């Protein structure tokens, strides 16, 4: 593919075709009315997409997003109680991205992401118990207590980690996609990262190789508009991330990250390109995190009003409203899902609390796959 695809980088094109929800640039700079207009638009656009999926599939998406939301709320609680240590980056507000994108791939496809990864891990199929146990530093955790919040791994579901150096996972994902092509499989790789990672050389080096060698990697930039406490406009000269794909002649899309179905559909298009033709895609997903960068973030770089404006576009509420309005879900079902999710999270916490810590001998376990003790002959 030598040029961006039709549903590609230009925001104007995307808007015209209404295939993607587009946030008005003015709006993110604080114009409430624009946000409200946008909210209405996103809702209308999502409504148009509901028919593309079966009812059970729609409900499953809602269920997963809600599970991640409640899981993260519980993490915040456990963190403040000192049960989770280290850094803890919550995904609240961005649930539609991981759930929408991962719903578009197969179980044997690969996912790599950054340190804000609990949502992706759960969406890819790691049991919430194993994720929570990892956060609690228990041996039953998905990384056996060695990784913590930022390094979740599960080989059985091809979840290849959270990586905690900004942009570090991007060359790795490119290599996983390289391996799929080398081995002649049709597996695809999803690589998630924040917009701040786009300023790293790793992003540019990877996209260049991916298009040069035609690798089936889908780069999903979760543009939540802040790299820690630095807003995108203070950090990026060209803020249109999708447009950067032009530099590598890589296909690109711009998607509203508050619409789980828009994310899913964009990912499906990218997956098709990757599976059939080993072609990479860059998807910029505009989203917003409702919580701080991490649990220790004082949040003094943005206003409460700004957060509240974005919360009006809460991806879970938006989706539920549409499901209700289209009578795809009733109050009884909503209640039951809420109860199920609460039980799942409670069960995960109980499991994590009751699990043992890693034994002391684990300190030196797994440093090497082929350990050589000093002077082995």
């Amino acid at each position, binding site marked *: 593919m030598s040029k961006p695809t039709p549903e590609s980088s230009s925001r104007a094109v995307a808007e015209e075709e209404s295939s993607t929800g587009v946030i008005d640039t003015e709006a993110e700079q604080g114009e409430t009315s624009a946000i409200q207009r946008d909210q209405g638009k996103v809702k209308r656009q999502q409504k148009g997409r509901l028919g593309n999926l079966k009812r059970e599939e729609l409900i499953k998406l809602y269920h997963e997003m809600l599970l991640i939301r409640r899981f993260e709320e519980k993490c915040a609680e456990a963190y403040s109680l000192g049960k989770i240590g280290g850094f803890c980056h919550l995904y609240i507000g961005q649930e539609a991205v991981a759930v929408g994108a991962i719903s578009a791939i197969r179980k044997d496809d*690969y996912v*790599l992401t950054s340190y804000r990864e609990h949502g992706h891990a759960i969406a890819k199929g790691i049991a919430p118990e194993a994720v929570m146990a990892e956060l609690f530093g228990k041996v039953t*955790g*998905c*990384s*056996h*207590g*060695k*990784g913590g919040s930022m*390094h979740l*791994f*599960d*080989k059985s579901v091809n979840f*290849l*980690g959270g*990586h*905690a*150096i900004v942009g*570090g996972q*991007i*060359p*790795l*994902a*490119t*290599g*996983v*996609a*390289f*391996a*799929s092509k*080398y*081995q002649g499989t049709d597996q695809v790789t999803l690589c998630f990262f924040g917009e701040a990672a786009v300023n790293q*050389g*790793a992003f540019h*080096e*990877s996209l*260049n*190789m991916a298009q*040069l*060698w035609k690798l089936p990697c889908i780069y999903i930039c979760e543009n939540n508009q802040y790299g820690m406490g630095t807003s995108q406009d203070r950090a990026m000269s060209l803020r249109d991330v999708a447009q950067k794909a032009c530099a590598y002649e890589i296909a690109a899309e711009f998607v509203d990250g508050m619409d789980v179905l828009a994310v899913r559909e964009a990912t499906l298009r990218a997956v098709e390109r990757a599976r059939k033709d080993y072609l990479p895609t860059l998807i910029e997903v505009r989203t917003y995190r409702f919580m701080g960068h991490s649990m220790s973030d004082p949040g003094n770089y943005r206003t409460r009003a700004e957060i509240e404006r974005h919360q009006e576009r809460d991806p879970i509420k938006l989706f539920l409203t549409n499901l209700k309005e289209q009578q795809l879900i009733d109050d009884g079902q909503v209640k039951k899902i809420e109860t199920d999710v609460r039980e799942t999270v409670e069960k995960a916490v109980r499991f994590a609390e009751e699990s043992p810590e890693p034994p002391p001998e684990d300190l030196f*376990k*797994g*440093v*090497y*796959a*082929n350990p*050589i*003790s*000093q*002077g*082995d*002959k």
Partner: protein
Amino acid sequence: MAVITIREALNQALKEEMLRDDSIFLMGEEVGAYQGAYKVTKGLLDQFGEKRVIDTPITELGFAGLGVGAAMAGLRPVIEFMTFNFSILAADQIINSAAKMLYMSGGQYKIPIVYRGPGGSAFQVSSQHSQAMESWYAYFPGLKVVMPSTAADAKGLLKSAIRDDDPVIFIEQERMYGMKGEVPDDDDFLVPLGVADIKREGKDATIVARSLMVPAALKAAEILESDGVSCEVIDPRTIRPLDIQTIVESVKKTSRLVVAEESHPFCGVAAEISVQVMERAFDYLDAPIKRVSGADAPMPYAKNLENLAIPTADQIAAAVREVAYLD
């Protein structure tokens, strides 16, 4: 046994291992069409094709990380750095990804990757192209660091490194590529990682040397022989894991130790060896351990200054005389 150069020995190792295992691929700058900046990969593109011998853009961080990802998905990459000076750009992926993946994934993702290429000084290529990087990489648990000094070791160690399931930093020496030595003809000739080699036996003093300093140490031993001093020369071959036992056994016999290295002295491998010997064999030492290291300055261009920056056989011999209280 054929007599071949270190360059040819490395080439044979790559070829034999790639024939043995389809999951091995070779990637780096100029490894294919150009036949390798130092011709180590000569002929491999013709033999194995573009799928397995891949010329990269100049994008060290990118392809160093791509290799780790490919290893996570089941391949066995051999990544060439045109020189290890350029690995500095890739250090994040080597240190943060390759070295730690197995550990932080709770043992789920092994990374069988080899990063190889020349390190240390070359011929008047100045500050940015003349760096000995081994102490950097040897610092990190999860990495193995290998430095051959003979053709046989080069071949046997590279084959072992490729078969190993851990990330291996394999540092060759540009000045040594043309050096010749006997190499067994056996396709399965392996030199195990983590095992030192006694390059010369002796009883009066131990010289530990690696890479370019091994021929220098052997020459120093010859000089000293004529003075009636018998030197044992030990090449650890693998810096991490370090076969300290062989070194300690030698020191227990000779009671004197000189460690020679091309690298800067500060926080270097010689410092590590010295302290480990002190911890294990202090009571056996008859003199303080002496280091002979490269100059503690960036590498200069001028030929005379460059010569002053790299340790010589004479300097090593002088250090041995010092620990033997001969002067």
